[in-house]
């Protein structure tokens, strides 16, 4: 079973994050009766989009500067694809920071890995420079 929940494309700009979060909430509300799980899903996807906005597109990049987001349900999993048209990033450079090292920044990757059951950087895929795939198992309480 592959049920599409959301397909959106927006300019990679921080001013669009709220719209992205609202659309994710609307798309995922019926998947679980656990509000906290929905909040965590929204946080993880927001962090992935933030990484695209802050790090993927170089300042002098002149091409299509956007974020493409696909959410679908595959059996008991919510699958999220965060795609961009930025130059392909070396996945080895994407690391969470040591949480004992108290400093600003570096928490986004930790949030994503803590919340999601599976996280995989697919690199260049078709027209996209980077594709991040995240999966979270849906459990009703």
């Amino acid at each position, binding site marked *: 079973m592959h049920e599409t929940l959301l397909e959106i494309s927006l300019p990679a700009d921080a001013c669009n994050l709220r719209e992205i979060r609202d659309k994710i909430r609307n798309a995922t509300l019926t998947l679980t009766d656990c509000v906290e799980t929905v909040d965590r899903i929204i946080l993880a996807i927001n962090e992935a989009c933030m990484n695209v906005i802050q790090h993927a597109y170089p300042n002098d990049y002149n091409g299509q500067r956007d974020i493409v987001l696909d959410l679908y349900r595959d059996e008991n999993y919510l699958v999220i694809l965060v795609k961009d048209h930025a130059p392909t990033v070396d996945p080895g450079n994407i690391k969470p920071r040591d949480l004992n090292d108290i400093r*600003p920044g570096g928490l986004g990757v930790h949030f994503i890995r803590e919340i999601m059951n599976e996280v995989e950087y697919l690199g260049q895929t078709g027209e996209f420079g980077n594709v991040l795939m995240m999966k979270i198992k849906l459990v009703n309480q």
Partner: protein
Amino acid sequence: MEIKKRNESGYSIISLVGEVDLHFSPKAREEILKALKNNENVLVELSEVSYIDSSGIASLVEGYQMSKKSGQTFGLLSVSNAAMQVLKLARLDSVFPIYDNVEDVKD
């Protein structure tokens, strides 16, 4: 997001209201660091924060670190459930001084 500021019991209380995300956290950071540079003892009130991401948390960490260097008071006040969930996820709930009320603050 909205930022309100008031003085209470000798502390500058900076209240963040709404969704503290990458779009608005630079304003929160600016307000927090400005107060600390002005030698104020700062409490950041989070009771009306409905959402905070890693950029908002980073602004709080920066304020905390600056206060440690300067010996000023810095803490979080009346943390909402939404903000607390994210602080716990970052394992920072045991790092920041967190108070329910201004009267509970220990210098």
